[in-house]
Every structure is written in structure tokens, then in C-alpha cells.
């Protein structure tokens, strides 16, 4: 695993930041919810306390003060109107009413004749829906007076107490389906009955398959406590009615109460209303008395953040499901706290601080993700930079020891961090190594130089001695041996100093573009003459192989290779000189038959002063006094490197001999 990858993995750790942020947001939401919940309870308690004993506010029937102390107990004729959320359209149809079968109150004459009442309150108006089951729907005679007994059909009476407590009645008499206005019976100027239109009470009459339906509205301002409905059922027009319902048949007085809150209750509650809050007051019976609902009016906290991003965040962060609203209840007691007169329910939508949390979450996620991204990118860049420096260092250290020279300057050696330290250490190490190598390289030359002076003393003394006439024959023999010994020593010294001279000659060499093929061909021809005891074969390409080279050096290198091949091959053996073309290089190979290279020699063959191979039985002892110091192959290496190439030695695949190959860059 590369350093870059490791650092990137480490960079992933910064993703903990957004994760922790999400966790924090959730914790915060839960704490917020708890706090909101208790504050909601406080609101509920406060509002409920302010309503304590306010029966007058909560109920419309302050008939007697004793009764006003407590909540009315619903009797059989009492009605508990629904608190409607919208005004029904007075059209005789029930489809815009809440579909609540349990809220209907039914009154029955017999199996075929009965009616149900559904009442509701909206904005200081009482709405009444009657469903009358009557197999014989009889309308009034059109055009006739509604008080003409002969023209009377089915009719509906509303009886109620006005604000002063006086009983009043209105009736609906329809001569056909449609809207109609209630009328009340008043005594005329002469004591006669008059049907006076009551314009504030209107309704709509529609036949149904089972009878008819009447929908009507009565302003609450007309109503006191009591309210009732009575049906005059006639099987045919003008017949005697059979009346049944909630009013006393004798005088049409109300028997039941309308349990409905005073209109002021809503006004009262509205002062507590805020967006996202719902206040509901219910009677102990469970009937809703008033409601202020601002749940839907959640203020926009801000212009919507990018919804896609928010949705994306919520997908990862939120638990599935809708946030439930908060609810709180507080009882409303009577004045003496003896009994309940109602209950206050406060509901608060969580949407508001859900939005708050979303906004905070979004900001936090944006921030932390940006932080992560920056950290990530930063780490990536740092890792790349580090890897670059490391690989530069690696390349430099790899190439530092190749070729003849040692690179002692490193990239990053001026950097002041640990890598710079490493590079500097490397550089120092290599400088020392270079010094040492240089010392070793020049050691032979220096040694030769130092030995040369005493040797010259020995040799010149011996030569002077030779000229002395009075030497005995025995002394002459010793003198001759001493002279031979000193000659050999001299030859060794020359060879030892040769390396330095070769290096100088190579550095001073000039390159020209030349064709290797004729060069090598002529050299091989010369070898055939020079080494008559070996056979030579030249394998050269047909096309010219031209490159920038110093021809003198190339031939010198070939000389050394052939010398070496001759030394280590038996008499009569074939020596193959081969020039091959490879991409970007020309390869010069010299194969000789003979003993393979011992494995320990690999890689050291081309070193200076390495005794190439001990003289084996294959070549006769060298009569030449020039010692073999392996300088030949060192020269080969120097020349190969001068030409941007390399020299190597390997055994032939079949083990029959050795191949020396030199790559020359083209």
C-alpha cells in the first residue's frame, strides 16, 4: 500500500466530523423537543388557569348563577355542536359537514318517522343539519299563506331562548326544494296571527330518498341557552300534524340546552395563538367547545435552502417517518377547584424547530463536509508531494552509485524537514563514499608513484652495478635475477598507473559520428593476424551502425575484450565478435569458448585491479612480464560508460563458454 493511499485513508477519518455533527444535531433535537414539551405544558397550565371558573366564557348558558358555576350536564335534549373548521354551504347537502355518525342526535316518532340533528358552530353562527326520515314528504301549497291550515305540509320548528331567556319559535315551511328563510308567528295589529320573515335564520330544504334534509344557519347572537327542533309531520297537505321532536309539544318550549361556548372564548383563546400552535377547549363530555388552530401557519424561517442538498442530508441523517407534533393537556377547574369545567389541549407542531434543526444541520454539514473536503484535498496534495519527493529521493539514491561517478547532491537537500535530513544524510554518506572510492581508485596510482622512486633507485643502482667490470660470475647471476625482478616490479607499476591514464584519456576523448561496422571488421581482420592460434568469426549487421563514439576507444575496448577472450580460450578455439542492433542501442558481444565464469565473479569482473581470472591450465604461463591485473575489463567498463552504455559478462546458455557484451547507447 503506497504512502499516498495510506494518507488518503487517514483523510477519510475527517468524515467523522459530519457524522459527529449529525449525532449532535439529533441529540440537540431531542433536548429541544423536551424543552419545548415542558414549555408547552406551562403554556397549557397558564391558559387553563386563566380560564378557571370562566363558565360564562366557556358556555353560552349562564341561565342561573348556580348552574353557571359548573359545566352543564348534558340531558337527553341537550345538543353539543361541533366546532367546525369551515362554514358549511347552506345548500341542503351534508357533504361539507364532518362525517361523524356518532355526533348525530336522533329523535323518533315511530319506525318510519324519525329525524337526526347535527349541529356545529363556526364564527358565531350555529349550523344545523336535519335528516328527516319521512315516507311522505308534503310541501306547502305554493302561493298559499304559510298560516293557511289547508295549505300546510311538513314543517320544521326551531325553538330557542333568546338572550333574555324568552322562548321563541321559528318555522321552516317549504313549497319546494331550495333555500328558504324561517318565519315566526307574531300577533298582528288586530290580534291575528302573522308569519313574519326572520331574515337572520335561513336554510335550504332538499328531498332525500328517505325523506328530506334541512340545513340551516342561526346566528349565535340570537340564542340564549335553550335550543330544540320539532317536526310537524303531515301525511297529506292540510291534514292534522303529528308533531315530535325536542320541544315540548304543548307550548313549543325548549327542553334542552345548546352546549356551546361563548363566542368570546375563541377571541380569548386567539390571544394565545401563535403560528404552529393549536389550542382546543373541550367540555368534560369531550365535546369540543373552541379551537384556535394556527398549526399550518408556520412562519418561513428563511428562504428555502437548496432543497436537494437538504433532502439528501435528511435522507442520510433522519430516521424515517414524520415528526409527531407535541401535545399537552391541562384541566380547567371551576371557581372552587371542585370540579372540571373543561380541558385545554395545546398542540404544537414540531415543524418549526424541525426547520430550525434542518437549517442548523445543513449549515453544519456544509461546514464539516467542506472541512473534510479541504482536509482531504490537502492530505492528497501533501501525500502526492511527499510521494514525489520520496520517489525523487529514491531515484536519486538508485542512480547515485551507478556509472563511475557518485552523485553527492540530492534533491531536497535544502528542505528543512525530516526528508531533507534523510537526503542530507544520504548526501553526506555518498560524499564520504565518494571520497573513499576516489581514494581507493587513486590508491593504485599513488602507490605506484610512491614505489617508483625507490624502484628507480634499485634499478639505476643495478644498472650501474652491471657496468662494474670486477664482478664475479656468481654475482652477475644474482645481479641478473635482481634486474629481472625489478623489471617485473616496474611492469606492475606501469600497469597500476595505467588506470589513471586510461581515465584521463577517456575523459579527454572526442566523439565523432562513425560507423561501427567497418571499424570492427578491420579490427577483427587485425586480430586474425595477431592471434594466429585462435579462429575469429565476425557477425556484423548488413546496414551501417553509426553512432556518436570515439573510434579509438571503441577499438581499444574491443582489443581488451579480445585479449581477454584469447587468454581464456584454448588454442584453436573460435572467438565470435558480434555487433547487434537493439532499440536505442548497439550491442557488441565477444563470445569465447572456455571455462564458464565462477559465480562469485559476477559483477566484480569490471572492477579496477580485479584479477580477472587466475591463469588456468588453458593458457600457458604468460611469458610476458606484464601482469594481468584485470585492468582490461575495467577499461572496457570505462569506455562503455563513456558511451552511455554498460558492460556485462555472462556464461553462454549451453555453458560452453563466456560472453562479454557491451551496450552502447545510440
Amino acid at each position, binding site marked *: 500500500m503506497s504512502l499516498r493511499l495510506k494518507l488518503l485513508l487517514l483523510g477519510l477519518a475527517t468524515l467523522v466530523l459530519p457524522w459527529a455533527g449529525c449525532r449532535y444535531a439529533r441529540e440537540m433535537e431531542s433536548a429541544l423537543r423536551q424543552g419545548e414539551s415542558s414549555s408547552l405544558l406551562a403554556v397549557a397550565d397558564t391558559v387553563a388557569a386563566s380560564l378557571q371558573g370562566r363558565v360564562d366564557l366557556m358556555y353560552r348558558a349562564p341561565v342561573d348563577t348556580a348552574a353557571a358555576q359548573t359545566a352543564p350536564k348534558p340531558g337527553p335534549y341537550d345538543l353539543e355542536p361541533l366546532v367546525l373548521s369551515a362554514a358549511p354551504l347552506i345548500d341542503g347537502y351534508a357533504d361539507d359537514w364532518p362525517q361523524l355518525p356518532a355526533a348525530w342526535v336522533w329523535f323518533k316518532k315511530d319506525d318510519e318517522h324519525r329525524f337526526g340533528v347535527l349541529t356545529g358552530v363556526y364564527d358565531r353562527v350555529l349550523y344545523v343539519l336535519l335528516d328527516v326520515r319521512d315516507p311522505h314528504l308534503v310541501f306547502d301549497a305554493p302561493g298559499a299563506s304559510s298560516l293557511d291550515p289547508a295549505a300546510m305540509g311538513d314543517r320544521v320548528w326551531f325553538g330557542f331562548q333568546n338572550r333574555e331567556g324568552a322562548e321563541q319559535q321559528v318555522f321552516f315551511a317549504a313549497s319546494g326544494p331550495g333555500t328558504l328563510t324561517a318565519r315566526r308567528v307574531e300577533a298582528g295589529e288586530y290580534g291575528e296571527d302573522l308569519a313574519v320573515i326572520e331574515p337572520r335564520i335561513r336554510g335550504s330544504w332538499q328531498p332525500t330518498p328517505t325523506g328530506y334534509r334541512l340545513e340551516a344557519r342561526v346566528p349565535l347572537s340570537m340564542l340564549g341557552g335553550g335550543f330544540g327542533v320539532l317536526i310537524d309531520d303531515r301525511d297529506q297537505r292540510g291534514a292534522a300534524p303529528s308533531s315530535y321532536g325536542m320541544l315540548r309539544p304543548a307550548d313549543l318550549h325548549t327542553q334542552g340546552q345548546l352546549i356551546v361556548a361563548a363566542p368570546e372564548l375563541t377571541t380569548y383563546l386567539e390571544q394565545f395563538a401563535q403560528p404552529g400552535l393549536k389550542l382546543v377547549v373541550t367540555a368534560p363530555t369531550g365535546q369540543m367547545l373552541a379551537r384556535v388552530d394556527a398549526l399550518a401557519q408556520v412562519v418561513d424561517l428563511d428562504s428555502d435552502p437548496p432543497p436537494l442538498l437538504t433532502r439528501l442530508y435528511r435522507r442520510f441523517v433522519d430516521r424515517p417517518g414524520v415528526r409527531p407534533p407535541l401535545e399537552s393537556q391541562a384541566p380547567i377547574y371551576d371557581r372552587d377547584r371542585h370540579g372540571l369545567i373543561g380541558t385545554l389541549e395545546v398542540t404544537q407542531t414540531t415543524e418549526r424547530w424541525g426547520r430550525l434543526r434542518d437549517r442548523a444541520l445543513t449549515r453544519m454539514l456544509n461546514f464539516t463536509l467542506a472541512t473534510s473536503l479541504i482536509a482531504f484535498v490537502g492530505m492528497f496534495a501533501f501525500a502526492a508531494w511527499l510521494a514525489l519527493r520520496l520517489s525523487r529521493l529514491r531515484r536519486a539514491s538508485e542512480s547515485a552509485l551507478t556509472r563511475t561517478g557518485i552523485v553527492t547532491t540530492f534533491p531536497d537537500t535544502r528542505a528543512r524537514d525530516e526528508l531533507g535530513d534523510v537526503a542530507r544524510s544520504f548526501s553526506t554518506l555518498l560524499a564520504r563514499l565518494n571520497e573513499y572510492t576516489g581514494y581507493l581508485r587513486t590508491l593504485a596510482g599513488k602507490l605506484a*608513484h610512491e614505489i*617508483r*622512486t625507490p*624502484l*628507480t*633507485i634499485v*634499478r*639505476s*643502482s643495478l*644498472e*650501474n652495478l652491471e*657496468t662494474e667490470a670486477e664482478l664475479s660470475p656468481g654475482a652477475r647471476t644474482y645481479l641478473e635475477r635482481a634486474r629481472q625482478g625489478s623489471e617485473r616490479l*616496474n611492469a606492475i*607499476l*606501469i*600497469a597500476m*598507473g*595505467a588506470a*589513471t*591514464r*586510461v581515465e*584521463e*584519456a577517456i575523459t*579527454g576523448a572526442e566523439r565523432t559520428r562513425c560507423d561501427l561496422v567497418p*571499424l570492427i571488421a*578491420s*579490427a*577483427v*581482420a*587485425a*586480430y586474425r*593476424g*595477431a592471434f594466429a592460434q585462435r579462429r575469429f568469426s565476425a557477425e556484423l549487421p548488413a546496414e551501417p551502425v553509426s553512432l556518436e563514439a570515439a*573510434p*579509438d576507444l571503441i*577499438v*581499444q575496448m*574491443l*582489443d581488451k575484450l579480445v585479449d581477454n577472450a584469447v587468454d581464456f580460450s584454448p588454442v584453436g578455439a573460435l572467438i565470435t565478435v558480434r555487433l547487434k542492433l537493439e532499440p536505442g542501442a548497439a550491442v557488441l558481444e565477444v563470445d569465447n569458448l572456455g571455462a564458464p565464469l565462477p559465480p562469485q565473479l559476477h559483477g566484480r569482473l569490471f572492477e579496477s585491479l580485479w584479477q580477472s581470472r587466475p591463469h588456468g591450465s588453458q593458457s600457458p604461463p604468460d611469458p610476458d612480464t606484464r601482469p594481468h591485473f584485470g585492468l582490461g575489463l575495467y577499461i572496457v567498463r570505462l569506455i562503455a560508460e563513456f558511451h552511455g552504455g554498460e558492460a556485462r559478462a555472462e556464461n553462454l546458455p549451453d555453458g560452453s563458454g563466456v560472453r562479454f557484451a557491451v551496450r552502447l547507447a545510440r
Partner: protein
Amino acid sequence: MMAKSVDAFGFRAPRCGGSLSPMKRLIAIVEDEAAIRDNYAAAFEREGYSVRTYASRALALAAFGARLPDLAVIDISLEDEPEGGFELCRQLRARSAELPIIFLTARDTELDAVSGLRLGADDFLTKDLSLAHLVARVNALFRRVEALRRPEEPGEVIRRGALTLDAERMQAQWDGKVVLLSLTEFWIVHALARHPGHVRNRQQLMDAANVVLDDNTITSHVKRIRRKFQAVDPKFDAVQTAYGMGYRWAE
């Protein structure tokens, strides 16, 4: 002052003693190694030369102020002066343009040889050379000096095209212009030009020049010869390389 007691000054009177015969040539050896100095002196004296030896540049200069020798053999490093020989050579050359000077040194690098020859030395020899060879070189140099002093007398002259080689005076000319060659270089050119077209291998060239050199030294000598001729004639290419064999003179 130049009596026997001058041993203390590091120079040695000729063994044959007495006053310097006008016939005897005077060779000055400046060498800080006493044993070598004396051995060389003995060899030269055997040949009939007068020899004076000096251990340091200061001693040599003091003596040369009185009388210049006929030939000077100088080592490069002298006592505490690693380059004292070069300095001495420069001073001698300033005093006399004709005085033959030979460097005889243990230092054998290309750089030393080039520096020495550039300072006007007539030859640059290493101490590997045997005494017999050294004496032969000195004799040859004297012969050259002698021949130059008698310009009218024709010696053995080889002419190869633009090249004129006077073996007697050891002088080379190209297109009538003198090419200043060191003795070693002269012998190499001589060996090549005597048989134009024939390849002379390195060993043959070494034998001709009476020197023991390795292949690379021969190569650098040849290179220097080419440069010297090219200084006179930029189109010079008579010394050709026969790769793998040696060199030949092309006409």
C-alpha cells in the same frame, strides 16, 4: 665555492675531477632523491659527461646563475616544492631558449607531460626508463643541438610530401615550417614516415622512441603529434589510425 665541500649544497663535482674540459658537456641533474641523483650522475659520467647535481631549485638556480649547463635533467617535485621542476624549467627557458631540458620524473600523467612539454622541455621521460635508454636520449638530444648549430651541413633527411624529417638535427618541417616535436614525438613520426603506408603497431613505436609506454600513452602522443601538425596545417591527416593494429603514415 664549487669545490668538493659543495656536497653540503647537494651538488657533486665530476668524478673525473679537475677543471671542466671544454670538450666535456656539462649536464645538470636536479633531483631531490640523493640515490637516484648519484646513480644518474654515475651513468652520465661513465659516458664522459660532466655532471653537476642539485637537490633543490634554489641550489640549482644559484649555480646556473654562474654558469648554464649544456643540458638539464629535472625532476618535477623537488623537496618541498611539488611543482618545483616546472618552475625551474620556466626560469631556465627564460634564461636560454636553446638549452635542452629533459623532465625525468615519477609522475607520468598526461597532464604532467603536457605541462612539461608546453613549458618548453625537449622531452618528458618517466623514471621507468632504463639508464641505457636515458643516456641514449641525452646523446640524441645533444646530437640535435649539435646539428642545429651547423645548419649548412645536410644530414640524413627524409622527405615525404610536405614532410621533411632531419634525423640528424631531429627536426621536423611541414611545408617548410618547423614543427616543434619532442624527442619521443620525433621518433614516432620518424618511425611512421620512414615506410609510408606500413602499419606500425604500438610496440614498434615504443621501440623506435626508446621508451616504455603503455598503449594509452602512445595514443596520446599520436594525438599530440596530430595537433602539432594541425597547428601548422589544419588539413593535416597523414597520421592515420589502423584500428586494432596501430598507425601508419599516409601520403
